[in-house]
């Protein structure tokens, strides 16, 4: 019986061409983009609070406990807001070092991992030798994370600095922190780096990077052809691929409303500290 119905209904689509005739009411009100919840903006500053988008690795209880642990750690030390492209100074307690502490300055080229496994990588060139150090964000041996220059770059990952000229990743180890006035948006540094000639570590030409200035001069016709063949212009329309990479809004708002209170307290405390520091700074100069 059902079979009959299916056949009958599925084979006459032409007749159904005029379904739009149901409620031809004019759109009642022009809805712009829906007003988004302001607590969702935390996702840029604290991306590691969001769980892994892969459902294979999801475990709501573990995620909740990890968030609690992360907040506890954040109450112990001040983990500031930073992005890929910011310049950080990290001081760790190092049992191997002579003074038992070790400080490294560098540009953040990558942030990855979620929960307590969040990591970031710093890169610097010291004595003409390129160095990269990976740190766990919630490592208990970290004494202090200081943002020397808060900015973003044009790309999400800055691995191309490995193949760029060394001056683009050279930062003095005794750099002074630059203070952004309160309330200004995080600046995006439109710096375009120059690459060294080939050989390179990766095929940068295929990655659609915005932060490279002189890539075209090193490419051969074969490179250009391969780049063209490997382009995937349909990928930016792949709605489900995007969906599988993100955490949906409803889940995010649950998470952020859970941690919002404590995060805001931490922010207030940091602001207070910053104000104190600005008051005390001139005194030390005088003395």
């Amino acid at each position, binding site marked *: 019986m059902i079979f009959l119905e299916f056949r009958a209904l599925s084979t006459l689509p032409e007749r159904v061409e005029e379904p739009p005739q149901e409620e031809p009411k004019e759109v009642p009100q022009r809805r712009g983009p829906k007003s988004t919840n302001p607590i969702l903006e935390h996702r840029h500053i604290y991306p590691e609070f969001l769980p892994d988008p892969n459902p294979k690795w999801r475990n709501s209880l573990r995620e909740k406990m990890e968030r609690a642990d992360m907040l506890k750690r954040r109450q112990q030390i001040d983990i500031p807001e930073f992005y890929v492209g910011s310049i950080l100074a990290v001081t*760790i307690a*190092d*049992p*191997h*070092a*002579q003074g038992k502490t*070790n400080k*490294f300055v560098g540009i953040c080229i990558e942030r990855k991992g979620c929960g307590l496994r969040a*990591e970031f990588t710093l890169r610097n060139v*010291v*004595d*003409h*030798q*390129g*160095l*990269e*150090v*990976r*740190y*766990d964000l919630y*490592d208990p*041996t970290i004494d202090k994370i200081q943002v020397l220059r808060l900015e973003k770059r044009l790309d999400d990952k800055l691995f191309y600095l*490995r193949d760029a000229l060394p001056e683009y990743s050279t930062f003095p180890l005794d750099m002074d922190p630059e203070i952004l006035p309160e309330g200004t948006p995080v600046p995006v540094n439109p710096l375009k780096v120059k690459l060294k000639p080939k050989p390179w570590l990766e095929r940068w030409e295929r990655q659609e990077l915005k932060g490279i200035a002189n890539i075209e001069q090193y490419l051969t016709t*074969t490179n250009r*052809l391969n780049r063209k*063949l*490997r382009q995937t212009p349909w990928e930016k329309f792949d709605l489900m691929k995007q969906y599988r990479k993100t955490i949906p809004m409803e889940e995010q708002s649950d998470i952020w409303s859970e941690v919002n209170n404590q995060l805001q307290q931490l922010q207030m405390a940091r602001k207070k500290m910053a104000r104190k520091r600005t008051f005390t700074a001139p005194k030390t100069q005088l003395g």
Partner: protein
Amino acid sequence: MFKSLITKLCPSQLTCGFHTTACLNEVRLLTRLRVVDNSEIGMRAMAEGKPPKIICVYNKKRVGFIGDRVMVAIKGQKKKGILVGLKQIQNVKVPKFDSNNIVLIDDNGTPLGTRIHVPIPTILRTILKERTHAKGADYTKLLAIATRFV
């Protein structure tokens, strides 16, 4: 995807349509290294553009890790050296270098040069101290000629 690529590529340009994983940058037999001390032989080898090649890694895995002793062929001679910086992905808080660095030593662990002109990972201090025994070679002399630790 690769089928479609191969159909797109004309056969004359068909070089390698297959995906390969990122290389591990392991230090193993015949890897070229960079000498970072100021020993005579090392400086000359690097200046001539003939960097040393590994001919033996002294551990069970035969893959060099940080602080491992290696034997290298440098300018027609066999010399021993200690790996002081690796390109390979390192553990957390251990620096990863842009080149595979080596400091030449002799059989007793005494460095041939008098100065290392690149930074040295601090973890080497512990590793080399562990490897030094009272009657064997003393590798900690290497730490004394380092200029900077990271």
